[in-house]
């Protein structure tokens, strides 16, 4: 049992940056180039650990602590999330609320750190992050409520480890709506196209980079790592909703889970290659449509009596 928990944590700690590498490679394919190596995110983090940190005289400890707090919060959220067949180290009735709130904590401190620099550029990123974040949170909760209703559990590990196994047969359309809505939320929360473009580096349009424009060295490494873990957690959540099928062979299931994650990363890469960004003032519409999707899903459940 302890070995399994250890494995769970190892995957949680080690695997996430690889997803970014896979997305990068997919995008490189569409651009007709070789592109950065798969392990580039690891190289970047390694490099940043060997650089000094530069701080602005305006900042306080909040600026310095924020990357650590947010990364710790995100990793703590990871201890609630089942990966493949690995039960999470901690689970309890109602842990999904904590799961979402840990992300909220991570966002809160990063936004404060951005405001700590006293620059309008970071302020812009902070305002955008906070605005979109609070809109995506409601859809997140509604989706989780639907999943809870379907699996009759308030614990992520029970929902994702078998809780939904019969739901696809019973209320498939609902799950499709939930998946779509979750996917949109994933794109928003992780600043991917069409909300934000990780490729462009222009202060005025970004969210992901402008909010940490002043972070450097190890702090930046933590931020990048935390973002990778966040993407990883969202992706594994979504994958767990989509594929509930298990052969109940530990190795095969695990391998399959990783395969799904890789496919998922490729999918994000494809989306990023085939869509343009939305205008920033249209992003709320996207969030709103994500919300509508899950409202629809919810209505279907109520009408069908799937609960």
């Amino acid at each position: 049992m302890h070995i399994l928990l250890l494995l769970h944590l190892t995957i949680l700690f080690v695997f996430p940056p690889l997803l970014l590498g896979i997305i990068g490679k997919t995008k490189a394919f569409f651009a007709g180039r070789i592109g950065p190596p798969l392990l580039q995110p690891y190289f970047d983090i390694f490099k940043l650990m060997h650089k000094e940190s530069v701080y602005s005289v305006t900042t306080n400890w909040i600026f310095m602590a924020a990357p650590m707090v947010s990364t710790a919060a995100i990793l703590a959220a990871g201890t609630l999330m089942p990966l493949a067949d690995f039960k999470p180290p901690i689970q309890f009735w109602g842990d999904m609320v904590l799961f979402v709130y840990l992300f909220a904590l991570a966002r809160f401190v990063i936004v404060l750190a951005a405001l700590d620099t006293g620059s309008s550029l970071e302020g812009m990123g902070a305002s955008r992050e906070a605005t979109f974040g609070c809109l995506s949170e409601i859809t997140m909760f509604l989706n989780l409520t639907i999943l809870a209703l379907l699996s009759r559990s308030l614990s992520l590990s029970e929902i994702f480890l078998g809780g939904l196994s019969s739901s696809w047969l019973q209320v498939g359309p609902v799950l499709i709506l939930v998946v779509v809505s979750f996917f949109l939320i994933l794109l928003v929360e992780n600043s991917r196209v069409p909300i934000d473009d990780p490729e462009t580096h222009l202060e005025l349009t970004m969210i992901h980079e402008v909010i940490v424009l002043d972070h450097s060295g190890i702090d930046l490494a933590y931020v990048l790592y935390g973002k990778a873990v966040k993407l990883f957690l969202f992706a594994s959540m979504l994958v767990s909703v989509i594929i509930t099928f298990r052969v109940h062979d530990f190795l095969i299931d695990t391998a399959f889970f990783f395969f799904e994650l890789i496919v998922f990363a490729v999918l994000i890469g494809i989306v990023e290659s085939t869509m343009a960004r939305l205008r920033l003032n249209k992003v709320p519409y996207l969030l709103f449509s994500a919300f509508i999707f899950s409202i629809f899903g919810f209505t279907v459940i109520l009408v069908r009596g799937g609960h």
Partner: protein
Amino acid sequence: MLKILKTRFKQGCRTILFPKAKAPDLPQRYRGRPIIAGQNGSIDLGKIFFNPDSDIVYSNDYSMATSKREDLVLSQEREMALARALNERMLKIFGRSLKLRQVSAGGCNACELDLNVLNTPVFDLSRFGIQFVASPRHADGIVVTGPVSRNMREALLKTYEAIPEPKLVIALGGCAISGGIFSDSPQASHGLDTIIPVDLFIPGCPPHPLTTLDGLLRLLGRISS
């Protein structure tokens, strides 16, 4: 989606295999590294304009970047010393990941444009882990173009200051190296190395993307002479 895929396959993967394979041939008229014809002359690559109507005879060789300012001066006596790799410690740090900030300091925009070309699929700088980033805080070095006009000097220093150590400085183009064509102007300075320490000099007006790429890769030890 299908249309995108179709266009993608028509376009193909265009990245050149350089440095593993030989770089594509440059046309006859390309004015690369000068050939020292006479016995008495020395040519300062940082000061010439690579213009056709001068007395200099040009070869087709694009590798010209050097680690030291004095290596740019070609003379009959010695072989040109191209850029050397960074020391082992720096290579360990930057070997696979190097983020650069570009500062355009009074040039004519040609160097900037040909630096941008390195991000196109053909040269694909990203495959070496080299990337241009928005914030100097995220950067490991600056690429400076232009003769550092009086009005840009302070901004350049601020940017340099903002980059966390250890950091690299790359002077791109004749203007950055010596003031170039503008060196007579009171508004221009006479070489980036008179302002901040420079790790790599890439001459040209503007340098061909291959010259720049070659220089960067030599600096990172990906090409050894």
